């Protein structure tokens, strides 16, 4: 065995990753050495520099097609588009994390997470104005993992990225300042089920390695072509897909989603709903299109079935929800199904619109859902956020702007034309029909109609119902949340009315190397 040589790294091509991981590493140091008073502004600034720097870097790198780090990382159009998308969602989420005007205790995160819920110290903490700042490096690490996930050209790197993005998320879920037991339950649940998913992924990895002798996606593809795959390879692929579908909250691997979305601090839920979904689908696309793109028959029935189950579960179970966060969780499951219809549209020889459509959909869905969750943080009662449906009755009279924005986001999630949700849905459905998957599209349309009912129910409550006398108050958002709402609402509108430029961008970025 010869000496181990360090693989050559294309630092420029990896600069988006370096920005975010750099911000995370420096953030840990800040946490250790900076005085408490300046920590919060410094951490926020650092996290924003990391995410916005990464975004700028992806824009500057546009057009790069390069495999680096000894074939372990692929920097191509799809990776850069999705990394840029994750960076945008990351920056917006950091802004939501940093909101200090809404909660009377000045932050949505508990100051000392290790204090047992309900203890004396815990009650003291409720009124304490100490602010938790570890969330920013944690979020940055998660973002770095997500961005790595979308660029990984190697199953091992993909697994490492999966862990890097998951572990900080487990922690973040447990950090809610209010309803702490719910939050901790969410964290444990997410961790346990996440560990299962990781195990599935690892087992699949081992099987694929056994079948092909390599963990590199391109090598797996070549092995599949020359040796025709075999049961081992297909089984391994299926297990890998199961692991990824868990992160993407695709039914039937969705059971954690409603609980975790409900228990986690709302800003973290927004972060997970938007950014984790992008990362997970980035990996799904890369795995299926690069490693198994020439063996479409192996995964097509699987993805087909998952898409149907996910759309129907999300749409039907969403009907029974009475909590807005849970409702949006089921909406997220349904949207995962719609995204899978885009994944189906690979097309012969990569010619389909599937990749571009799925990437565009990820961008539109993430922005809309971030906006919707941001609004949830504003409507509060004495016990924190008022997320029960009945508490939103008559909100339009109390706060016309919040109600109008919420109605707009919900219509976008329902896919009404002139919102980004419609453009995205149109794109993925077109990709699927081009590929002959019209039964899937018909089911998707039926699911959209069912899901529209629960989005509409909120609109009905806000606009057509009389306000409850002891209803919630609507907080005045500080600058960060205002910025988030302005950006997400503007994007939802613009991507609905004039999506041409971004669609072109997605189309030209629809390149996978490796």
């Amino acid at each position, binding site marked *: 065995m010869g000496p181990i040589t360090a693989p050559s790294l294309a630092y420029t091509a990896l600069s988006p990753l370096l920005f975010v991981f750099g911000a995370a590493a420096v953030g840990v140091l800040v946490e250790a050495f900076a005085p408490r008073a300046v920590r919060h502004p410094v951490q926020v600034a650092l996290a924003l520099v990391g995410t916005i720097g990464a975004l700028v870097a992806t824009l500057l790198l546009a057009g790069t097609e390069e495999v680096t780090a000894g074939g372990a990382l692929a920097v191509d159009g799809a990776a850069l588009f999705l990394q840029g998308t994750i960076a945008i969602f990351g920056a917006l989420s950091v802004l939501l994390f940093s909101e200090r005007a809404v909660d009377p205790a000045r932050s949505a995160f508990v100051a000392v997470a290790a204090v047992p819920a309900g203890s004396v110290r815990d009650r003291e903490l409720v009124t304490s104005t100490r602010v938790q700042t570890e969330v920013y490096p944690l979020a940055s690490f998660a973002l770095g993992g997500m961005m790595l996930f979308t660029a990984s050209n190697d199953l091992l790197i993909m697994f490492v990225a999966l862990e890097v993005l998951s572990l900080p998320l487990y922690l973040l879920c447990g950090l809610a300042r209010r309803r702490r037991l719910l939050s901790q339950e969410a964290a444990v649940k997410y961790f346990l089920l996440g560990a299962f998913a990781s195990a599935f992924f690892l087992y699949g990895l081992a099987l694929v390695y056994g079948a092909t002798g390599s963990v590199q996606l391109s090598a797996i593809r070549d092995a599949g072509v020359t040796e025709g795959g075999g049961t081992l390879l297909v089984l391994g692929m299926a297990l890998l897909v199961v692991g990824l579908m868990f992160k993407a909250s695709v039914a039937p691997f969705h059971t954690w989603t409603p609980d975790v979305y409900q228990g986690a601090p709302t800003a973290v839920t927004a972060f997970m709903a938007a950014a984790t979904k992008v990362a997970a689908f980035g990996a799904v696309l890369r795995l299926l299109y690069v490693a198994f793109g020439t063996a479409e028959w192996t995964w097509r029935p699987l993805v087909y079935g998952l898409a149907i189950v996910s759309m129907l579960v999300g749409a039907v179970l969403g009907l029974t929800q009475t909590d807005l966060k849970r409702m949006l969780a089921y909406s997220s499951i349904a949207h995962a199904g719609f995204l899978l219809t885009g994944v189906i549209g690979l097309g012969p020889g990569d010619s389909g619109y599937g990749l571009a459509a799925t990437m565009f959909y990820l961008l539109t869905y993430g922005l809309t859902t971030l906006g919707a969750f941001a609004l949830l943080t504003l409507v509060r009662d004495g016990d924190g956020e008022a997320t029960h449906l009945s508490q939103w009755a008559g909100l339009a009279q109390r706060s016309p702007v919040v109600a109008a924005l919420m109605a707009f986001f919900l219509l976008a999630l329902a896919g009404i034309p002139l919102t980004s949700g419609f453009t995205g849905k149109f794109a993925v459905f*077109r990709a699927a029909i081009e590929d002959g998957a019209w039964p899937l599209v018909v089911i998707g349309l039926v699911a959209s109609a069912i899901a529209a009912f629960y989005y509409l*129910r909120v609109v009905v409550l806000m606009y*057509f119902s009389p306000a409850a006398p002891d209803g919630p108050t609507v907080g005045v958002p500080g600058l960060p949340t205002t910025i988030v709402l302005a950006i997400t609402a503007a994007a939802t509108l613009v991507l609905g009315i004039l999506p041409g430029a971004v*669609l072109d961008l997605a189309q030209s970025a629809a390149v996978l190397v490796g």
Partner: protein
Amino acid sequence: MSDFPFLLAMIVVPAVGAAVLAALPATRQALARGLAMAVSLLVLLLAVLATVAFDPGGARFQLTTSVSWIADFGVSFALGVDGIALVMLLLIGVLVPVVIGASWDEQAAGTRSMRTYWAWLLLLESMMVGVFAATDVFLFYVFFEVMLIPMYFLIGSFGGPNRQYAAVKFFLYSLLGGLVMLASVIGLYVVSNSELGQGTFAFDALRQLDIDPGVQKLLFLGFFVAFAIKAPLVPFHTWLPDAGAEAPIGSAVLLVGVLDKVGTYGFLRYCLPLFPDASRDLAPLVLVLAVIGVLYAALVAMGQSDMKRLVSYTSIAHFGFIALGIFAFSTEAATGAVLYMVNHGIATGLLFLVVGIVISRGGSRQIRDYGGLAAKAPLLAGVFLLAGLASLALPGTNSFVSEFLVLIGSFPREPVFTILATTGIVLAALYILLMYQRVFHGPPRGVLAPPPDDAAPTDGGGSTAVLTAPAPARTSVLRDLSRRELAVLAPLVALVIGLGVYPQPLIDLIDPGVQATMSDVGVDPGGSAPEAPGGTD
């Protein structure tokens, strides 16, 4: 002059008007309604000017505008009208100011404001113009869906006691239909992509496609379901009585008068020319539904105790006639159907308005709460009777011409269905005249009854509606039509009689468009424009 983008202006002007109204402070109600009226009259003026600029003998689509919109999808923002669309625009232009005038003095209950009502109304007008003027199928779909939102808020915020249910039912039915249509729209795009090498949504290009008959049937069904829900054909109709009954009167007029016509318009504009083989093959199915609709809705209408529901059911019967005219595949019948769409908008609009006036006076939607009104309000009774007679297509009223054209044009091709539908006319006479008789004649009943033996009608629907007339006190029921109400109703009354006597200008406008459509389906357009039956010439 004909270079002026009339259609674009007719979409933009009310949309901008709606935005301005929404931005006005809530205290400026009087300014808001004046502005709303001015904007709607401006749209009417634009519609009239567009008609002047339109040359019936010219190209099929005129006043066209086309801008590339979403190049990646092959979508353009393309507008243009043929005679069929143009008369619908005229109908919109006439009805919206009338509707605004009709709710001039109404107050919104609670914290709701009439300013919002006018704003939604104008936005609805903008969307309705768009849906008729679009010549790009994608654009049509966009307007088709977005149009639901203003109507949803109009019903849900300003409707009767059961408005939440009605609004959601309306929205979901239409949305479901729209989504099924979306599948077909995408399907059309994919077919065009494989046939032309480049996907497009342009109506003129899609019309040239030679689609496989099996695929045609599927795509046809997608469009058909959407339109059959919109124009409600039995069995897709159950949302309309609820929506029609709960909507405030002005919105009900636009809902039944214009919005639902998108369905029948869609049959004619999209189903027939795009899928000619499927249309011919599946026509018997549509005709069966149409005739069932005519008879079933007429029977159900007779059993209604709620006046607004009754009028809604009569509309379902009328939509059956229109569908019969369209799917009989003759130029005469189709011309009659288009004319029917206009005339039904006018006649039913008028009927809804007078019913609304009766309800606002009496505070109840129930027929049994009224009786002997004619003695106290002879003018109201007269207009009501005229609207009713127009609705049952008495010769001399506008509806007669269209119904006659539909029946006479359909008979040679579909004698059985035509004969069956004709019995619907008899039923129409029954339900209209029965309602008229119970409400306006006989001994004073209900709200007009002498005070001692009368418990105030509290069970009537209208009394808890969000939109109420200023003072629905018991005595106000004695009031005949005010001058404002007369002025609002007069244009429609004039149109009922005018178009009944001299419909030829409209027919001349409609006919070339219908002939072009018929030649798309492969039916010989045959000869000249039909003459108006019973006309003055």
